């Protein structure tokens, strides 16, 4: 079945440093979504990427979808303590899948003030 691998599992940064998490799928994806889970909270949708090579920005967050639609990345510039949490990528395969997503293992981000 489809597998989505995400690295690193953990990342500790000083406030103000940049952060990147990477996501790789074993199969070509129709789209990829990113979610954030704050400590003690539940995953919350951030963004969806659909097109090959697509780049989207949300303030300090930059999301990329690879040309082959098998990988993606999330980059945070100048991290803040409010960025702490677990970031998940979630891939959707083509065809009728009833909205089923395959989640990566997540990257736990800790930001030291």
């Amino acid at each position: 079945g489809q597998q989505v691998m995400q690295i690193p599992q953990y990342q500790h940064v000083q406030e103000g440093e940049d952060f990147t998490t990477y996501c790789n799928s074993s199969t070509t994806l129709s789209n990829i979504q990113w979610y954030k889970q704050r400590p003690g909270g539940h995953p919350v949708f951030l963004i969806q990427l659909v097109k090959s090579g697509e780049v989207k920005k949300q303030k300090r967050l930059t999301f990329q979808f690879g040309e082959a639609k098998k990988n993606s990345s999330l980059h945070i510039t100048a991290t803040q303590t409010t960025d702490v949490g677990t970031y998940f990528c979630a891939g959707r395969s083509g065809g009728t899948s009833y909205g089923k997503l395959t989640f990566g293992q997540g990257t736990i981000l800790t930001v030291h003030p």
Partner: protein
Amino acid sequence: DVKVTQSSRYLVKRTGEKVFLECVQDMDHENMFWYRQDPGLGLRLIYFSYDVKMKEKGDIPEGYSVSREKKERFSLILESASTNQTSMYLCASSAYDTGRNIQYFGAGTRLSVL
């Protein structure tokens, strides 16, 4: 705002007990999902449902069953709870497959099986 409500935040059960986890969504979503979340393993799909009385196995269905008698409610059943089912359980819902099927999650149920 979409609201997905899980009946319990914390649950403690004994080995061998039958356990029901309930999930209700208020956005008339067709799709509903049950995941378990374990450290280092991310979110793993147990079962999902795309319509009333319709269900499909996810990646780790063993030891679980589900029920969807009404569109807004999706129940996860542990027929005979075991200690390896101690985990965080998350319910999610999404609209019909339109290509932008954002999943909305409940707050989660942390289940401990003793």
